[in-house]
């Protein structure tokens, strides 16, 4: 596959890893924001190629992980109503709410359907006019334009039976929240490359300046991640805190104008609660007044946000990058994908689940890496 295979070349990866090792003179802690990047790092073992001085923390870049449990509960409740078809991306089907997940709801008879694209949900609504079709619209800025298009199309078609349960989150505010955290050790960021493809780079210069952290827009293949790590380390060694873009084959400083335009028409920025991170101002998206008629919360009742449960789970600290999964005493012992204590283990995209799956439970006994 072109534009994929060549970015997985082992020799090239080692060359970049060597370059990082040569550049490094003292310890640095970096964070990659996006769950997809975490996935690639753990799957390809990229962190195993890095010198000991470079510590990679895994950030809150998993919208599945940070979706408040109340939204999952709401989706399950809506799915259980007669005549409703609940459409969702595959990722969300196994995230547990307070009492089971959407998959379990399906086995209890709810009509829950997995879709690949938000437009598939609109098509289902068109094909089944007597049913209420609700689309669970989660994601970062990468997915927001597609979800916006679904709303736009539904309005264009004057569909009375389509609505969206919106739980969108934005990345830059989460990065700020991480940097503001009292226990923060992150000194440089790998920004989420596909979020940047949509939104461009304008959000990051103020963050880099304010907190003195280099921010490098990173892709998702091994060479992209290693190149970004190299540039980030080089900046830190040189005492710079700038925004850099090695993922320029798809990221431009201005981003995707057409996507931003539609997002601006359909969504407005609101405060949002993030599972594990708490309330972050200006960090979520909701439908604008023009599209409020499609809001599933209007049709089926508002989501009531409760307080987060305390317990042994450290997922908040993991999402903030203040702890690695292997540094949690419960990891692999009392907390496994089969019996998860918190969202980062439950969701297959969570840092804990990724570690468990690719490193095995014995990673805990190998010591904090």
């Amino acid at each position: 596959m072109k534009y994929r295979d060549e970015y997985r070349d082992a020799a090239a990866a080692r060359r970049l890893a060597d370059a990082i090792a040569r550049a490094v003179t003292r310890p640095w802690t970096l964070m990659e924001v996006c769950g997809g990047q975490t996935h690639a790092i753990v799957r390809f073992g990229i962190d195993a190629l890095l010198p000991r001085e470079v510590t990679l923390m895994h950030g809150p870049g998993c919208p599945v992980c940070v979706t408040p449990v109340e939204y999952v509960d709401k989706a399950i409740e809506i799915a259980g109503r007669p005549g409703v078809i609940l459409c969702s991306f595959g990722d969300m089907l196994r995230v547990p709410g307070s009492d089971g997940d959407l998959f379990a709801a399906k086995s209890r008879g709810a009509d829950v359907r997995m879709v690949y694209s938000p437009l598939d949900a609109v098509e289902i609504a068109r094909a089944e006019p007597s049913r209420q079709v609700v689309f669970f619209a989660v994601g970062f800025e990468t997915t927001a334009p597609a979800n916006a298009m679904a709303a736009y199309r539904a309005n264009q078609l004057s569909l009375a039976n389509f609505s969206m349960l919106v739980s969108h989150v934005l990345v830059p505010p989460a990065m700020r929240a991480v940097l503001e955290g009292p226990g923060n050790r992150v000194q440089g960021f790998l920004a989420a490359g596909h979020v940047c493809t949509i939104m461009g780079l304008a959000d990051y210069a103020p963050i880099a300046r304010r907190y003195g952290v280099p921010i490098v827009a990173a892709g998702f293949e091994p060479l992209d991640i290693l190149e970004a790590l190299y540039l980030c380390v080089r900046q830190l060694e040189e005492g710079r805190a700038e925004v850099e873009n090695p993922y320029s084959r798809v990221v431009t400083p201005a981003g995707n104008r057409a996507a931003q335009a539609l997002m601006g028409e359909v969504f407005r920025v609101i405060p949002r609660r993030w599972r594990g991170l708490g309330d972050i101002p200006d960090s979520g998206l909701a439908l604008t007044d023009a599209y409020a008629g499609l809001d599933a919360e209007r049709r089926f009742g508002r989501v009531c946000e409760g307080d987060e449960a305390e317990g042994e789970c450290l997922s908040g600290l993991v999402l903030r990058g203040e702890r690695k999964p292997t540094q949690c005493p419960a990891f692999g012992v009392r907390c496994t994908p089969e019996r998860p204590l918190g969202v980062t283990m439950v969701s297959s995209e969570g840092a804990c689940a990724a570690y468990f799956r690719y490193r095995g439970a014995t990673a805990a006994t190998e010591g904090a890496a």
Partner: protein
Amino acid sequence: MCLAVPGRVLDRSGDDPLTRVGRVDFGGVVKQINLAFAPEAEVGDYVLVHVGFAIAVIDAAEAARIFAHLDELGELAEFAARAP
């Protein structure tokens, strides 16, 4: 978030930019993709696709940059190895 995959545009149809679609070839698997967010995509271009939408046209020249950097690194490494 953000699993996006590169593919080659085989054809495109539709006059309305918001509903324009194209068949995109992902290494032997072809799917119809919405091109609303990549209006400049031409047949033969590579696009980056997320949840059924092209979110960028892949710039071949920019894509070559990392390999130029790798070449430099290769030369540097050899230089360092030869240095006394």
